[in-house]
């Protein structure tokens, strides 16, 4: 088993009450699956943006054990 590092940014950090969590896995998961596994099986909301290893990606991208996934909200205010 290896771990995927999961990070929550900005308002997601506030809502979930944590900025980082570790997910143990032996096989690759999609970004959506990572979200569901660390968020009580809730599916990934469509508006949430995702990055794997600091690269902006779509929710169906595969995440390998050892990777870092970051979730962050859209921002439009000004």
């Amino acid at each position: 088993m290896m771990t995927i590092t999961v990070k929550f940014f900005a308002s997601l950090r506030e809502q979930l009450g944590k900025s980082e969590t570790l997910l143990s896995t032996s096989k690759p998961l999609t970004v959506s699956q990572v979200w569901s596994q660390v968020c009580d099986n809730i599916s990934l909301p469509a508006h949430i943006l995702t990055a794997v290893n600091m690269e902006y990606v779509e929710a169906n991208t595969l995440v390998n054990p050892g990777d870092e996934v970051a979730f962050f909200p859209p921002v439009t205010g000004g």
Partner: protein
Amino acid sequence: MNNLHHPHFLSPQIDIDSIQKLSHSKVLIVGLGGLGSPVAMYLAATGVGHLVLADSDTVEISNLQRQIVHDTFQIGQSKVHSALRKLQAIHPHLQITPIQQRLEGDLLDAQVKAVDVVADCSDNFTTRFALNAACVRHCKPLVAGAAIRFTGQVAVFLPSLPQSPCYRCLYPDIEETAETCSQMGILAPLVGVIGSLQAVEIVKVLLYFGQPLCGKLFLFDAYTTQWRILTLYKDVNCPVCNHTLSADVRL
């Protein structure tokens, strides 16, 4: 040339030619709120020659904690004319074109076409997408900033580079969230951080120096004082910018 901009000579990247170049540059600033305030004030102070200011709103007292180009003497005045007064006090030779309406349709195209860089300081996705599409159409650099609560983002899009993503590549299928700073709240100086970074990027793009934040998304979380720079790729299915890609492929 005037003494106001003399201190720039201390920087090897900004020489006399750069100051001349800035004084002949024209920047469109869309939104004269929390982000537009520092962008406009720093560009005026840096010596950009011509600012086109677009905003349909008037100054309200609730704006003043974060929209620092306006002050209590301007309450009820249009934001563009309030800003004009402050910016001319900063830089008397600055040319300002105030547009007190929403930039849409032909007016948007005409204004984007006529400037060197567009600063997106607006507060809604409808305006942001329209601005982005116009910048792609007319091949103009777009420096986009956004901020809410404790978080902010900055990205630079350079449609002249075939590999550059556009704003739509970042938000392919987002719906208007209606999360405005007045409803959700914002840490007032955060718009200063984000707007100032936009101004830095605009000066770099105008003068072709350094590495602009193109193909990157700068994210700042003021609550934890953490920032990250994500790599952003062109979306091959982007409805706005993928025509440039397919045109290149055809060539």
